[in-house]
């Protein structure tokens, strides 16, 4: 990724928001959607263009759970740990995925295939436990279905 391309991309995202400091969270979200994480160079670019202190941009980038400062895997697995999912055994689903992939939440597999994260509720409470892989929802999960589910992603 060239520094110039990155700068141009970030500029164009900033322009979509009229370089409004108040839209920082949305701006970071768009950058993350582009690169699948927040490259540090992008944060510097955002800080300079918005005229917002770098430490503030970093503070926002690390405050919100949705942002990652590390490159993430090809597939993002989100295990919902909302209350409804919890009472239906979401923790056991999470543990099973952790064991299958041998990673902890927040981490990425060595082959950069999967990143495992947890989310506090995706509002599919009626279908719990829910696992979302790359935006695809898998409701009413069971521990014994985990392995097959993961094998679908290559």
């Amino acid at each position, binding site marked *: 990724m060239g520094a110039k391309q990155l700068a141009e991309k970030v500029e164009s995202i900033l322009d979509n928001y009229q370089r409004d*400091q*108040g*839209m*920082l*969270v*949305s701006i*970071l*979200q768009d950058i993350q959607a582009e690169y699948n994480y927040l490259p540090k160079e992008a944060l510097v670019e955002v800080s300079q263009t*918005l005229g*917002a202190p770098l430490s*503030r941009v970093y*503070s*926002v980038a690390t*405050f*919100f*759970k*949705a*942002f990652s400062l590390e490159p993430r895997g090809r597939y993002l697995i989100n295990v919902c*740990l*909302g*209350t*409804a*999912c*919890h*009472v*239906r*055994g979401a923790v*056991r689903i999470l*543990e*099973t995925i952790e*064991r299958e992939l041998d990673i902890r939440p927040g981490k990425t597999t060595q082959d950069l295939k999967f990143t495992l994260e947890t*989310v*506090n*509720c*995706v*509002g*599919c*409470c*009626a*279908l*719990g436990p*829910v696992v979302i892989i790359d*935006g695809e*929802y*898998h*409701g009413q999960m*069971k*521990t*014994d279905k985990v392995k097959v589910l993961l094998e679908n992603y290559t």
Partner: protein
Amino acid sequence: MVGKGQALNRLSSPDELEGIRKSIIKQRDPNKPCITICGGTGCLALRGESVIAAFKQKIKRQGVETKVDVRITGCPGFCERGPLVVIKPQNIFYQRIRVEDVPEIISETVLRDNIIDRLLYTDPNTGQKVIYEHEVSFYKKQKRLIIGNNELIDPTIIDDYLAVGGYAALSKVLFRMSPEEVIEEVKKSSLRGRGGGGFPTGIKWETCRKARGDIKYLICNCDEGDPGAFMDRSLMEGNPHSVLEGMIIGAYAIGCHEGYIYVRNEYPLAVKNAGIAIRQAEEYGLLGKDILGSGFDFSIRISRGGGAFVCGESSALMASLEGKPGEARAKYVHTVERGLWDKPTNLNNVETWANVPLIINQGADWYTKIGTPNSKGTKIFSLVGKVNNTGLVEVPMGITLREVIFDIGGGIPGGKEFKAVQTGGPSGGVIPESLLDLPVDFDELTKAGSMMGSGGMIVMDENNCMVDIAKYFLTFLEEESCGKCVPCREGVKRMREILTDITEGRGKDGDIELLERLSAVIIDSSLCALGGTAPNPVLTTIGYFRDEYEAHIRDKRCPAGVCKALISYHIVDEKCPGCRLCEKACPTRAITFVEKRKPVILDQEKCIKCGICYDVCNLDAITVK
């Protein structure tokens, strides 16, 4: 039909609005068969997308496009049974539809009026099949004033909303009411904020209107961070225009010209549909400059949250809207006087806004007939957890918990015992069996040590451990605390650590008292409501289920069989036929096959208590002790 992708004509008077409404309704034949398919996140998660595609494709292939309409609607609430399909005009209710069912539905039901028995809903209590939607027990006791329109409209088509009377309330206030009259009407309706605190909406608006400042902001909070609640998501996805209409009315009443919808990024469909709705409303001249030719301007921007529960707190949300970390600030000057960018700011949540057009259309007198003396109108709950009919339910205030859980929810699945219901999310608490006849309203729930919150209602059965639930919420809050004030940052962490110790067999005498002592300092001295209510899940579980805590602490036993460190899995020899399902599934090879028709053997040394064997066994041959 005017819809996606086409430019809409700008409306510049109430008459033009009524004119276009008439022409939309006229174009529509109420007797024409219409297949309505839920397009909400819940049904989509259950492969609803492919069902929708299949319907579209089959109809085209069979050449019946002119004979039948397809409408992708918002969420009707009965997520448990999704994907949901309702055939209109008869309102035949089909549930759990798979792609394979699609051709038959078209050929049999739509074209020949034949009911397909296997797709009908079976009442879990009576065992009877139900044909029509309104006869489904889940819907019977509900009063679907707010969410009811979800299933009548395609949220991406503004004309659908106009067809059900949309924006009539806006037209009414802009041309026939003064801002003061609007506020008076909302005050008279006794509408209370649906986001958690239950503050009277009309008074909030009035304070903001009277607050000094030329610029004022209006915010719709759709950062539904409460895990286990999704009514705001469903409304924003399923009927975004009703929220917009409420916001514009509020803006007119308060005197705001700029508004924000702060929506969780975890709700991609809500973000998308809100964006489409804003664009369409702008094109029609219902939003933006000179709304409906009234001279009133109001614009709305969408801001996406970054995943922080604390942003449900208004000052934290506003910090986030200013591009800062979502930290709460000391609020001794209220945000209605000094909020976003230090300007007077009125914030209400999605459901509150959606109530506004209803109040204006029907009048406060009509509205106040619903509910209890201090809580008027209806409330939407997400009824989830260990209950047969999970989904969104809208009920009049004052209904009892028992009615909600047993009549609407159909009781507890698998013949298990009801244990408790958790309301109010992490700020709320659990309510035991003995209080099931409690009428549901703001004050009664608070009296029971819980709260209304945004409307999560999580049902728990005998297999749920109350200490584990308390630990769950405190773990959640520990992670979500912004960390600004000491009692919340450290106190909540300490409480969670004590609870972890208890669930892992390290509990000791005095722990309960220490939890109570910490609770007092956290409740009394935290900076914002997140900390101020954080101990509720612990205090209510201690209050109603102290014996469970004591069993963990003294006997090192988890009565519900949940806390991993205190339980073990066992083979029920008389039930196990040695089918080897569990043996194959066990990740640590802790289960040994002996021979056919003989029970397997479980090695406790190797067992990591992952529970997979328990899940795969179809014969209840594995038990937890």
